[in-house]
């Protein structure tokens, strides 16, 4: 069965309005109220955006499993992400204990892990960053982007659109 997944257009002005009213506007027009009580703290930001520390993860309900990592401090900063179990990575993703401790967990099982996606229809780029996953402790809402040591993991792993 073929499914077409349409995803989010970011237009700064109109997006800011939608953000402030608590509604996340989808390309297909369906609004999704997102829960501002689930704000995740990224104490060290993420590489390239070290000053941003407040994010939410917005599920795209009609476009499961894709989600959006959304900055609350700079709304244009929004990235598509995918939970890692939905993506067939040839390499095992193993988060070091030191990084797990940073977000207050003892085991990787207690975390939600996502890959950031780089997607451009125009440039025909569809890749997934398996080298630097987003790791979140959903209980205390702490998150970080971890850069893994494994040299076989790619920062731009092609997304296989079969």
């Amino acid at each position, binding site marked *: 069965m*073929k*499914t*077409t*997944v*349409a*995803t*989010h*257009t*970011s237009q700064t002005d109109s997006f800011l309005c939608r953000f402030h009213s608590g509604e996340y506007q989808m*390309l297909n027009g369906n609004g999704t109220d997102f829960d501002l009580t689930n704000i995740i703290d990224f104490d*060290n930001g*993420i*590489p*390239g*955006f070290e000053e941003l520390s407040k994010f939410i993860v917005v599920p795209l309900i009609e476009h499961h499993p*894709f989600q*959006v990592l959304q900055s609350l401090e700079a709304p*244009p*900063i*929004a*990235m*598509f992400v995918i939970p890692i179990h939905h993506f067939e990575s040839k390499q095992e993703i193993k988060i070091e204990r*030191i990084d797990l*401790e*940073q977000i207050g967990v003892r085991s990787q099982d207690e975390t939600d892990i996502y890959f*950031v*996606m*780089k*997607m*451009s*229809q*125009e440039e025909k780029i*569809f890749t997934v*960053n398996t*080298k*630097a996953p987003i790791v979140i402790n959903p209980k205390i809402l702490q998150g970080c*982007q971890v*850069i893994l040591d494994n040299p076989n993991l790619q*920062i*731009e792993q092609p997304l296989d*659109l*079969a």
Partner: protein
Amino acid sequence: MLVLTRKSGEKIRIGKDIIVSIVSKGQGPLKLGIEAPKEISIYREEIYQSVINTNRHSIAKESVRLKF
């Protein structure tokens, strides 16, 4: 940038918590040992820069259609 000359076995202290040691210096690449508090992440710079670059290019700017 501070430039220091060190011999094998010598160290550099950064702030109160970070120590960089020259582990070996023979033929081939230099080995550095770094002791730092666990809260401080240590990366090869080119990899960190690649992640910065990819993050910046991952910002959603346009609508995307995916077919499965």
